[in-house]
């Protein structure tokens, strides 16, 4: 291993991973080009679009502006790991499908990661305005956002049904 690389030990989607990475690589580059996890997208590559959003210890962050070294010893969750506890398909992914909330789909992985964190933190069904705030860093060029907001609200209601409602 050259001096320019280091051993990154981290957990990715629940699996411990150790991989040699150049010091100057971002987490996004390690995910996409070392681990073949190409769900997280490389859009602007400088913080403007949110397509690369992943979770670090459960918090949404931009993988394109996270040094790989900053993921040392931490838990990374990407869109590939989203459905793990839900038999492969997360209620958000199901709702995006039903609402046609993905068109070209480039923004979708990042949006799912921001939306999942919101619903988990609130622990209840969420409203359109708070979804819009939570997704304020995720650009979508296709859908006009309406269907995305509807899908996230719907998924949160599926996950947290109102008492007395079937």
């Amino acid at each position, binding site marked *: 291993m050259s001096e320019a690389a280091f051993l990154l030990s981290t957990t990715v989607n629940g699996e411990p991973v150790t991989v040699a990475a150049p*010091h*100057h690589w*971002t987490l996004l580059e390690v995910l996409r080009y070392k681990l073949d996890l190409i769900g997280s997208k490389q859009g602007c*590559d400088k*913080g403007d679009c949110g397509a690369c959003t992943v979770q670090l210890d459960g918090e949404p962050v931009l993988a394109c*502006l996270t040094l790989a070294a900053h993921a040392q010893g931490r838990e990374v969750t990407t869109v590939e790991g989203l459905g793990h506890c839900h038999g492969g398909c997360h209620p958000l992914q199901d709702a995006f499908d039903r609402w046609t909330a993905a068109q070209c789909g480039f923004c979708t992985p990042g949006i799912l990661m921001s939306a999942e964190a919101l619903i988990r933190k609130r622990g209840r069904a969420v409203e359109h305005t708070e979804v819009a705030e939570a997704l304020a*860093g995720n650009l979508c060029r296709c859908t006009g956002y309406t269907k995305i907001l509807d899908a996230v609200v719907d998924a949160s209601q599926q996950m947290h049904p109102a008492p007395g409602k079937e």
Partner: protein
Amino acid sequence: MLRLPPFRVVSPDTVEGVVAALQQPGARLIAGGTDILPNLKHWLDRPEVLVSINRLTALRGIVRDDNAGVLRIGAGTTLTQIAEHPDVQQLFPSLAQSAGCVASPSIRNMGTIGGNLNLDTRCRYVNQTEFWRGAIGGGCIKSEGNVCHVVPKGRNCVAAMSSDNVPVLMSLQAVIVQAGPEGTRTVPLCDYYHADGTRHTHAKPGEITTEVQVPLPTSARRTHYVKWCVRKSIDFPLVSVALRFDLDKDDVSATISAAHVVAGVLGARPRQVRKLDAILGLALNDPKVAQIVSEAAFKQCKPLANVPYETAYRRRMIRVYTRRGIEAMVNAG
């Protein structure tokens, strides 16, 4: 795809370790990375080593210190933590506002207050790829060239101090703690910046900001932060004004005893709006207050063509946003 230039990363776990690591030639500090990494991706610098404060847990957290009369905010505290902290929301609402309106939620989860106070100055001729800069004839004073495109005959860089929190923390008379090879010192934030876009802070070589101390209010007051930007999120401010009015009692009809108004996004140093004596003794909800303060801000603040939008329009927006900010404060009661 924007590639970073090659560098090594070291992550000491003590302040002393960070200060020592910064002694290496070509070393630079990285906190959240949301400012330095885009700049490095634009090849504006090629540091040999990035010294990360990622493992410095001691720099994180917010503590109310009643004995010293300050709220202590560790430099590694994220903007999300500041915006959501109950003491910040209750004691310093304008700071909760400014921290909560930076960029986007994910960037606020990463970006720290230390990085925000030391944010590099910004300019539409410099925050561009190397290729773009080459296309306008090889950059400018702040990058690889020797001219300024904003002030064509100027010898100084006038890139804009674009942090949302700096004007607010200046209006709150915050003090920062700097740790360096010669020990620690405190600096009032109002004295930390100077008007040179290539080196806009008085940080000494190898120094790091470890803490922000915000004096607890000693009288009733109203504070507010206004920011104009193109979209409601992600964007840096094009005009920003921090407002603070000290009052003789806790009501918007109370008399103003002191005023602190600071405008950002002008040159490399935020401007403290002066000559506000005419409002001292007036009630905050007297319509003359908004008129006098917004007119003073308009007269004293002269935006430069360093960030997008026409300067004449931005200047008018300073007046508009200052007035609206004061009206919002009054309407909130």
